[in-house]
Structures are given as C-alpha cells and as structure tokens.
C-alpha cells in the first residue's frame, strides 16, 4: 500500500478534522398502501430504519446526527473549530509530547492550543485530543500549523509538523445609502435615513439574528424594521427570517442628531460618522457568525453660509387666493455677520405679494430670523414654491432658493378643509 515511503518513521500520527456543526440525516421515504402488492413491507422497512422518525416515517428530515462531510466553507466572522488528535501508532510508550497548534494568517500568527504544557507520556494506541476554536477575523489564506515534538524510548528527540491551509471567504455584501430629511416643519430636525442592503453571498441559507445600527455619539437611532401588530413587535420580514444564498434584504434606520448637536446647526456639517452596522447570523444548527461594518460616513448636505428652511406652510390653498408661509433664515457661517436683502421673483404659477428687495437687517453667526411671506398661485395643481433670493450685501453674493416646498392649489369652488 505504501507508495511514497515516508522520509522518516514517526511513532505518533497527527490527524486534524474541522468541526463544523453536525447535520441531520435525511432519508428517502418509499411507501405503499396496504392493498398494494408489497402490503405493509415498505412501511415496515421504514419503521425498522433507525434514521426515520418514529411514528412519522415519511418525514424526510430525521433526527440522526452525522459528522461533517467535508471541510466546507469558512467565512469571515465565523468560528473555526477543529479537532486535533495525536495518536500513538507504535507499540512503545512515548514521552514528553508537546502538541502546538498555530494559525498563520496574512498578518499574524496565533497560538490556538488550549495548553502549552507537555504531556509526560503517551501509551500505545492512546490519543492526545484537543479541540481548538478561533473566531476568524481576516479574509484570505489561513494556515493551521500543527507541530508535534516527543521523545522516543531510546531518548531520541523527534519533531514533525503539518500544515493545513484554508481560505476564509466573505459572507456578506453590504451596501448603504443615506437620505436626508429636511423636516423643519415638525419639531424634529436633520433626520437621516439609512438604507442598508445586506446580501448573503455564501452558499447556504443564513438566519439573520441581529442587524442593528450602532450610532455614533452624535445620533440616536430608530430601527424601522418592525411594525407593531396587536401590541406585538413583528419583523417586517415576517417568517422569512432567513436569507437564501444571493438573497438581499434591505434594512432601514432613522437617525436623529442628539439635542446638543442638533441645535447648533453648524456642527453637523461635511463628512460625519453615522455609526456602524452590527450583524449576527446563524446557519446550520446554530453555527454563529458576527461582523461589523466600518464606520459609515455621510456627507451632511451643504447648506452653504445661509440656510433657508420652512417653518410653516399650508398644504392646500385656493386658486388665486393669497396664503402665508413662514421661513426661517439661519446664518450658518462661523464668524461672519451678514447683511441680507430678500428678493422675490415670480414664476409661472407663484406670485409673491409684498415688496421685493427689502433689507432683512444684520444676522449674526449661528443666529436666525423668521420671516412671514405672502404669495398666491395662479395655476391649479401641485405647485412648487420657488423664487426666493437672498443677497449678502457685504460679499455681494446671492443665494437662490427654489423648490422650497410644494402646495396643492385647488379651485376656490372646492371648499378647502382647513
């Protein structure tokens, strides 16, 4: 049987087996009815088969556990477990056995052995067993290096090593998208919505146990992935709690700046750190994996130096009847006091009432003023409020504000519900 003679005879043999979770045995039910020719024969056979479920033999998924059948795949964030067995194949007692298991990754080398103490002696046909665990934190090639040293009866010091290589793959694909909600009309300000698409790029179904957003210090987060039903919180994914291979699921989160950051509008500006996604999943028989994304970042919408936002506007107005809106103008610059002039330009449908080009007076940094304006629409339908211009007289710079909001314009014959 020996084809390649070993370079050196070793008294000990090292065996390694990856311990993924066991699987449940499935059987193939073949049944017949009593009236059929085999009578009860097939059914009896199935009852006698220990792998079928007692009393429900047709149920394919049995209860018998079988050991893993191959190395399988291992994914980032999962735990690599392995059985290491050193067996004395010889007929002599071997002394001072030291078994060392290291994991070499592209960046580091970790010792995984439970104990680094030598075993004093190993009798023939006995084993040294170790089960190692390691949460995989890197993608790419990993090499499990197992080294065994021992002393023979003759006092000769022996040593051998074995290498087991495996690839760690990426289990998930995560994509994110931010939406800014400028909802100054309500009491909330500067909400940010995060859409996160998570795709299972493994080959087995994956149960998403937890997908949460850990917000950065500036934000509070509300998860929008469940609905309240009869007082109970039900996931929007219902019974589809798992992701099939290549399935993508979208999660939605709403982030609100905390009070202390929200009030000073200037603080959340430019690139800000939103937080990170924390994902825990499980696969076969509870095999667990966990990953976090890096900090998600978002470019805060640029408001420029002067921000114009709406405080109040009716949703429905009558055609050709004046209505009022309230604007808020904020000086967002850090140290410059502004002297602003307001111009109002009519559009096809929107007509401003009052004087265009009026002075608004001095506006200090980070302060704001409220402005009541009157306008009317000459066209029915959903109309965009546009045409406000603010000019900073000091810098001679003009800021344009179009499509600030929309109103529904209806014929005055229809009574507007107030």
């Amino acid at each position: 049987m020996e084809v390649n003679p070993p370079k050196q005879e070793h008294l000990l043999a090292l065996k390694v087996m990856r311990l993924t979770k066991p699987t449940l045995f499935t059987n193939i039910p073949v049944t017949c009815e009593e009236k059929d020719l085999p009578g009860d024969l097939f059914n009896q056979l199935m009852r006698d088969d220990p792998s079928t479920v007692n009393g429900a033999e047709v149920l394919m998924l049995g209860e018998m556990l079988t050991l893993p059948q191959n190395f399988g795949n291992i994914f980032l964030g999962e735990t690599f477990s392995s059985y290491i067995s050193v067996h004395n194949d010889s007929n002599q007692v071997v002394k001072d056995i030291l078994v060392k298991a290291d994991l070499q990754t592209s960046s580091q080398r970790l010792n995984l052995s439970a104990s680094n103490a030598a075993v004093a002696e190993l009798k023939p046909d006995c084993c040294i067993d170790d089960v190692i665990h390691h949460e995989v934190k890197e993608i790419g090639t990993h090499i499990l290096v197992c080294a065994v040293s021992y002393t023979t009866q003759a006092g000769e010091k022996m040593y051998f090593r074995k290498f087991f290589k495996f690839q760690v793959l990426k289990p998930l694909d995560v994509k994110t998208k931010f939406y800014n909600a400028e909802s100054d009309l309500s009491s909330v300000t500067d909400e940010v919505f995060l859409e996160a698409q998570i795709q299972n790029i493994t080959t087995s179904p994956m149960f998403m146990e937890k997908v949460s957003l850990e917000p950065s210090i500036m934000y509070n987060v509300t998860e929008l992935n469940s609905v309240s039903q009869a007082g109970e919180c039900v996931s929007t994914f219902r019974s589809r709690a798992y992701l099939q291979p290549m399935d993508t699921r979208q999660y939605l989160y709403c982030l609100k700046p905390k009070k202390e950051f929200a009030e000073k509008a200037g603080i959340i500006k430019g690139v800000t750190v939103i937080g990170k996604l924390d994902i825990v999943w499980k696969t076969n028989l509870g095999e667990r994996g966990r990953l976090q994304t890096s900090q998600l970042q978002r470019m805060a919408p640029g408001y420029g130096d002067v921000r114009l936002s709406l405080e109040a506007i009716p949703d429905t107005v009558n055609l050709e009847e004046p209505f009022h809106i309230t604007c808020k103008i904020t000086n967002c610059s850090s140290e410059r006091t502004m002297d602003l002039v307001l111009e109002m330009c009519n559009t096809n449908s929107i007509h401003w009432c009052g004087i265009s080009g009026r002075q608004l007076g001095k506006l200090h940094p980070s302060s704001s003023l409220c402005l009541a304006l009157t306008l009317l629409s000459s066209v029915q339908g959903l109309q965009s409020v546009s045409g406000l211009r603010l000019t900073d007289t000091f810098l001679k710079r003009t800021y344009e504000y179009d499509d600030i909001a929309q109103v529904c314009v209806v014929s005055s014959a229809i009574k507007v519900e107030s």
Partner: protein
Amino acid sequence: MEDARGGEETPAPQAPHLPPLAPAEEQGLLFQEETIDLGGDEFGSEENESASEDSTPLVDKLNEHMMESVLISDSPNNSEGDVGDLGQVREEAEPRGEGDSGPEPAGTPSPTSEADGDCAPGDAGEDEAVAPGSGGAPRQDAAPETPGSEAEAAHPEQTPPAADPVPVCTIFSQRAPPAPGDGFEPQMVKSPSFGGTSEAPARTPPQAVQPSPSLSTFFGDAAASHSLASDFFDSFTTSAFVSVSNPSAGSPTPASPPPLAVPGTEGRPEPVATRGPQAAAPPVSPEPFAHIQAVFAGSDDPFATALSMSEMDRRNDAWLPGEATRGVLRAVAAQQRGAVFVDKEKLTMPGLRFDNIQGDAVKDLMLRFLGEKAAAKRQVLNASSVEPSFVGLKQLILWFVRLALLVKLGLFQNAEMEFEPFGNLDQPDLYYEYYPHVYPGRRGSMVPFSMRILHAELQQYLGNPQESLDRLHRVKTVCSKILANLEQGLAEDGGTSSVTPEGRQASIRLWRSRLGRVMYSMANCLLLMKDYVLAVEAYHSVITYYPEQQPQLLSGIGRIALQIGDIKTAEKYFQDVEKVTQKSGGLQGKITVLMNRAFLYLGQNNFAEAHRFFTEILRMDPANAVANNNAAVCLLYLGKLKDSLRQLEAMVQQDPRHYLHESVLFNLTTMYELESSRSMQKKQSLLEAVASKEGDSFNTQCLKLA
C-alpha cells in the same frame, strides 16, 4: 484592513457605497497589509527543526506539505438526501479541488495523492489521505457496482435507439411543436414509446447502466440475445404481466400485430409535440385480452379475483383521467366491440431497461479488501433466484414494486428510464375501462396510488424538484376533486352513487389520507429545495390530515428552524410539542421532548448539555439508536474521541442488525480516520459486519473504503 483607510475617504453622501466589512472587535488590528512571510526566520525560530527539515527554503517546504485540512468523503446524507442533484455534488467537489491544487506552484508535485491505505505511522503525507483523496471523488465514480463506464452509460442517452430512425432536427422542423417551454433536448426524443409528458431530460448520465436494449428488443421482433433477467421478465410479458400494462407490449408472439382498422378519430388524442413520425406505428386493440381472461377464469388466484369490481376496488382505484384520456375511454365504452383507434404513442409500453443493473457493491468491496474466499460467503437475491412461476410473479410482477425498489436502491436514473413509457400515468390503457372484455364493468386506474406518488417524487432525487412539485400538484388536484365529489354525496369519479354511508366514510378516510400523503411529499420536496417557508407551511397542513403525528411534525418543523439557524423559532415549536405531549404522555412523547431539548442545546453550541439529554433518553430507552448515535457525536465535539468511538462500537456490537445504519457507519468510519492511521483495518472489519447483515441496497460510500 480597509476600515482604517476609510477614515480619510470622503464618500459621496447620496451614492450607495460599499462599506468594507471588518470583523467585530479588534478593528484596529487588521489594517496592516503585510503579506505572509513564511520564509526562514519565522519558522526557523523553532528548535527541533533540524530533525526533520532539510535546508530547502520553507516556502517550498510549505507547498510541498500543503494540504486541505479536512477529511471526509461523501456522506450517507449526500448520497441519500441529495443524491439526485449530482450537479450539486459536483459543485462541491470543484472548489475543493481548487483549494487543493490552486495555490501550489504548478511545478510542485503534490506529495501523496494515494488513498487512505497507508498504515505506517508517521508518514509525512498521510494526513492527506484523510482529505481530498477520498473526499474529492465525485459520486459517479463511487458506484463500483457498475460494469459500464460512465461514458458507456451516457451512451444510450445520446444515441437514439436503432429502431428510431428519426433524426432530431426533422422533428423540430416538420412539426413546429407548440413548445412547452422546457428546452427540447435531443436526448428527449430517444424512445419510440415516449410517453406523453414533457419528461425533463436526465441531467446526468445514469450511473450504473449497461447500454439500454432498445424496446424493440422486447416488444418487436424476437431478439437474438436475451439475457437472463429479461427473459424472465419477458415470460411475464407474454402472459398475465402485461395485463397490468399494455396489450401491445404483450403481443409479440403473434408475428405481426393484428391489423387494425377503424379510424375512430374522435377519440384520437393530439400527438404530443416531442413525438416522432413513428406515430404511424400500428395502434392497438384490447382484443387479445379475451384469452387472458379465459386463463384466469375460475381460478382463485388473487389476480383473477382482482378482475371483478368490488367496492374496495372502486374506492382504491378511483382516478380522474385527463381530458384526452377521458375521451378515449368514453369511446371505448361506447363501442363495446373494440376497434377504437388510439395513437400508439398514447399507449404505455413499459419495458425492462436493465438487466443486473446494480451488481453487489458490498461484494465488490469484499473482493477488493477481504479476498475471494470471504466474498464467496456473500449472498444476495437476484432475478435468477426468483422462480419464474406465479410464486415468483407475486414478488416481482408489479411495475410499482420494481420501480419502488429501484428508488430504494438509489438507482434513480434507472427508475426514471423505466418510468418513462408510463408517461404521465394517464394513458388510456392504464385504466380498466380500456379493457371492457377483460375487466367488464370495472372502472378506475390500474396504476396504484403509491406509484403516482413515487412517479412524482422520483424527479426530486434526479435534481428536478420543480417537476416533482408539478406532478404532486396534479395528484393533489385529483385527490381534492375526488374528496369534494365524495363530500357532495357523489361517487369518487363524480357520478351518482349507491354507496352506503359507511362505504362513503371509508372512502373519505382513504382519500383524506392520500391527500395527506401528497402534502407530505410536497413538504419533503420543498425541504429538499430549501424553500423552508413553504415547506413549513406544507408540514403544517400535513398535521391536519395526520393529527396523530402532530408531535413528530412539530418537532420536525423545529428541526428545520434549527437547520436554518433560527433557534428562537425552533424553541417555540419545541415548546408546542411539549404542550401537546403533556396531554398524551407516554414514553414516546417523553423521548420526543428530550430529543428536542438536546437539539436546542446543540443549536446553542452547548454540546455538554445536549449530550446529557441524549444520555437521559438512553436511560429510558437503552435501545434508542438515534440517542446513542447523537450522544456519541456530542462526545466528539467535546474532545472525547475515544469515548465516542467506544459508545458507537458498543452500540453496533450490541445489535448489528438494528444499528448498522449508514449514518452510524459513516460516523464510525469518520472517527476511525481521525483516530489513527490504521483506520483501514477497522473499516474492513466493519465491512465484514455489513456483509453479513445488509442487503444490496446498502450504500457502501458510508464506509469510505473506495
């Protein structure tokens, strides 16, 4: 890695971007992108190096020793549960192969690719034997029983039998088929007796098949060389046997088929698109059956008694034929004296496709590893050990039994090929009404209900679960309709009936249970398709048909949830089981509850507690094979290989007949491989044990000897 760099990046706010993933915790550690340096220094730091290493650079050394870490060839699971989907198995084998050879420099020969046979301790490369040598072997190779090679086996699939002169392309060009969408492959048009349905082409060549004799060998001119088994079957074919299938098949004895007149076209069904011009073949009349009936007359043989219609028969054989078939059957009924012209293609022409298909894999292994003397002791039944008399006939006569056995043996391709002539099991000649002379007054399907189930289920094992589902839905539709008829006070087939209330109740019970059986198959099929949500729904509906199986089914659903990784849902189902069994009590209920708890602990990665519960079951039911095996499996995960082995071995020795199950053997051989370099001897002794206990349906792969 990436995350550190992320700090400087300024991603566009609105565009979707792809945040790099980093493992939980330790984010800072990972961004050094150094490549591994396996050369000198790092490894050289170890002391005893010189003992076994020479001075070649370590990188080479590493490659030389590089191996896939773990283990294990195909499992019984693979071959049982998923075997139909060979494509899948192949897929699995592929990446393994890549991992094995990919990273090695092309020039480096891998040290030992030899199989597990080495017994020498300390062989430098022997651990490799544990790994891909056996693991990578695709399933097809592993069927040692086949004399025919794969190429040979594939042959009959591709070349149309000589009897079929139809070139494939003419079929398409001439007929312009109303394509049913599922790609026509040349292979489909192979058999002159092709059924009616759109049989999905076999994805893989039949694994263990001798070149298929063309049907004409059986049904046409007297062929020169019949082998033993086909002779045997032919002897039935000419007698009673055929009465269950097809008169045309049964009449090769008259040198030429009776010339059939009468173009009664009203009953003539539309030829199916995939059919070749050989539809011109002479059609068949039920006439020749008169003499068969005479043979049976007055005998107390069960087959003779089966000829008269009883209430039982009506109940069991009821079936609702398809539109076209119904037309033919009506025509037959109207024209008493035979002579309805039926397209031959619409009829069933079953035939044996294989002689001695499967050999005896256990014996082959024994020959290889234990020598001829040991192998001679091995005895299995084969066709020649069944007397060609009525006694033998009863054992083998029905196609259903043969097909069921083929499925049981895992010979799915073979079963499919033999099923093929039956089409969708709706040809007119599969109904009693087609033979008014042989079965006067008898109505209904000659195809047993179980055969319809088998016919549907088979496809999922061949990797076409969707076809399975389609067929099961058709069966379900008929079952539901029959039930509806019964509940409306009609007979099964929708006619008015004079059935007693008791008879009706019995019939309703029967058809409800059949409907439940179909739902069961659907649930199993959906499970195989990994459509867990639908599978769970289907199992729930099975409960309404088989309420007595509620604890087992709820537990099964819980295990499905566990398989997905949904521990919470599993727990919920297991709690439901506890509520249900509390009412009923009994040992079986207690065992189910304990088993579920053990599984729940497994799902929580707590092997110690799981082991405790499996052991608890053994205290109540020491012969419980599942608990025994599962407790042993837990021990392995707890690092107690020797204890685990002891438990499994003790169990197998205690009652080999009961415990020598594939799954147990698979676990045992896996552990032998892990335990020592002498696993070969131990496996061979297992083989000896298997040889004396198991039939030829035994899946030898679980011994991992090949």
